[in-house]
C-alpha cells in the first residue's frame, strides 16, 4: 500500500463542501460538557405530561413497569438512568435521536427538555422544581459517574 499511496495525488478533492447550515441540521449530538444542547428549558411538571402521553405505554406509568427498558430504579436492581448512567446529557441526546421507539425524531426540543427533567426527577437526581437548561443539564451529577473506568486492556495473558 505504501508504494501505491505514493502514486496518489496530494488531495483527491472528492465530494462537495458541507456548509454550516447543512451541518447544523444533522449535528444532533449532545456532549457531557453541554456542547450540542439547544437553548431551552424544561421542567418536571410538563415532562410528566409528555411522558404519560408518549412514553408510559412502553416504559410504565412509573418508569419501571416496562415492558421495555426500566428508566427508573426499582427493587430489581436492573440498570437505569438513576443507578447506571454516568452523564445526564445522554438522556437528552438519546431521547431526541431515538425515542419514542415507534416515532423516532418526532419530539420537539421543548418536549425533550421537559422529559429529561422528568426522568431525572423520577430517579431522585433533581428536585421537582429544578429547571433543566443548556447550562444546568451538564452540571447535573449522576450517581453512577464515579464507577466508570476506561478499558485499559491491550491483550496479553491477563484476564480482566
Amino acid at each position: 500500500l505504501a508504494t501505491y499511496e505514493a502514486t496518489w495525488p496530494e488531495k483527491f478533492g472528492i465530494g462537495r463542501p458541507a456548509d454550516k447550515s447543512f451541518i447544523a441540521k444533522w449535528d444532533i449530538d449532545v456532549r457531557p460538557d453541554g456542547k450540542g444542547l439547544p437553548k431551552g428549558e424544561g421542567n418536571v411538571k410538563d415532562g410528566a405530561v409528555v411522558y404519560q402521553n408518549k412514553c408510559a405505554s412502553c416504559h410504565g406509568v412509573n418508569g419501571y413497569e416496562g415492558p421495555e427498558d426500566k428508566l427508573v430504579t426499582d427493587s430489581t436492581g436492573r440498570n437505569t438512568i438513576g443507578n447506571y448512567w454516568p452523564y445526564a446529557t445522554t438522556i437528552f441526546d438519546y431521547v431526541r435521536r431515538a425515542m419514542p421507539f415507534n416515532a423516532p425524531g418526532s419530539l420537539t426540543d421543548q418536549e425533550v427538555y421537559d422529559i429529561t427533567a422528568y426522568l431525572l426527577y423520577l430517579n431522585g437526581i433533581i428536585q421537582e422544581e429544578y429547571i433543566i437548561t443548556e447550562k444546568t443539564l451538564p452540571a447535573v451529577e449522576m450517581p453512577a459517574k464515579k464507577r466508570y473506568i476506561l478499558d485499559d486492556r491491550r491483550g496479553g495473558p491477563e484476564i480482566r
Partner: protein
Amino acid sequence: QHTSNQVIEPDFDSKIVVDPSKVQGAPSSEVGYRSKFDSPKRIATYETASRTPLEDLQGTITPSDLHFERHHAGIPEIDPSQHELLIHGLVEKPIRLKLSDLKKYPSVSRICFIECSGNFRYGKREMTPGEVCGLTSQSEWTGVLLSTVLRDLGVKPEAKWLLAEGADGALMARSVPLQEALTEAIIAYGQNGEAIRPQQGYPMRLVIPGFEGNTQIKWLRRIEVTDEPVMTREETSKYTEKVKDGNIRMFSLVMDARSIITYPAYPKKIEKGWQELRGIAWSGRGKVTKVLVSVNNGKTWQEAHLQGPVLEKAHTAFKFMWNWDGKPTRVLSKAIDETGYEQPTYNQLVEARESKGGYHFNPVVGWDVEKSGEVYLADIKDI
C-alpha cells in the same frame, strides 16, 4: 437456443426420486437459488436481532444473507441517490459524500469478522452454536480506508475521537478513538463481492476490524471528528460492563479471543470412531496463533490444526481429528491470540470481573457427548 417439442420437465415439486441423469435439468437464471434440501436460516427470535447458524456453515465466509443482525430501530430502506455521508468537526474541510463519491477513492478489501459484544448466551443444555454465540459473522468487506478520506479533509491537531452516526431510526451513534480508527477502519460499501445488504448497512457502514460490532455504524450518514467522546447511550447505558470493585468498564472496544466447536454440537448425534472436530476461533487483537482442544473435559489439551491462510481479526477454522471411544465425555476449545491472550473459563471471568455475564463475556464453551452420541451444551460453571 435449443429447439424441441418434447422437453421432459424435471419434477421440481415431487419427492419422487428419479435418476437425475435421465431428465433434462433446469435452465440458467439471473440469480441462483439454494437447494431445497439445504437452506440454512438465521435464528431470528427478536425483531431487532438474528443469529448466524454457525452449526450449518463451513469454511470461514458467512453468506451475506445469513450474516447476523443487530439493529436498534429496524432496517432502514435507503435510496443511495438520496443518501449522503457528512464528515465534519475538527477537519479543515467538512464534506458531503454520496455513495458514488466514496467509490472514487482508492479501495480496499478485507476479510474479517464482525461480532456483537453481547455475543454470549447460555442456560440450557439444548442450545446450538448459533444460539450460544451466533452474533458473529465474516465477510470480505470493500470500501475506502477512513484514513484515506480524512487525509483529504485535513484533520486538526486537537482531534482525538470521532462520532459515527447512522441514518436509522435510532440515529445509532458511537464514539471511537481517532488513532485506532485511522489505523484500519473502512467506510465500506461492499460485502462479499456485492453491495452491502440492507441488514448490514446499505449503502455504507463503518468496518473497524476487531472492534465490537456496535461501533461499526451501519447506514452511516455522519462522522464528526472531535476532541472528546460524546458518551452516547450506547457507550454508557449499554455496551459497558460491570467489573471488579463495583466499577463499570466503558470503551471496551476490541473483541477478545474466542472459539467454539461447531461440530459436534447440539443437536447433532455422533457415532463411535473417528471424527473431525471442527470450529472457528477469532481475536479482535490480531491473528489466532493456536487453538487448544480437549476431548477429556479439560484434563489434557492438544493443538488443533488451523486452516490457512490465517488472517488477522478473522474467523479461523480449526480442526481436530478425534477417535471417540463411545464413552461419555466433554469436548472443549480455547483460542490463543498473537498477544498471548488465552480464552478464559467462565469461572476465571467471574472471578476477575466479579460478574456473571454482560458484554465481552467470552468464556470457553464446550459440549457434553453422551453415551448415546447425543451432544449437549456443557454447563458453563463446570468448565
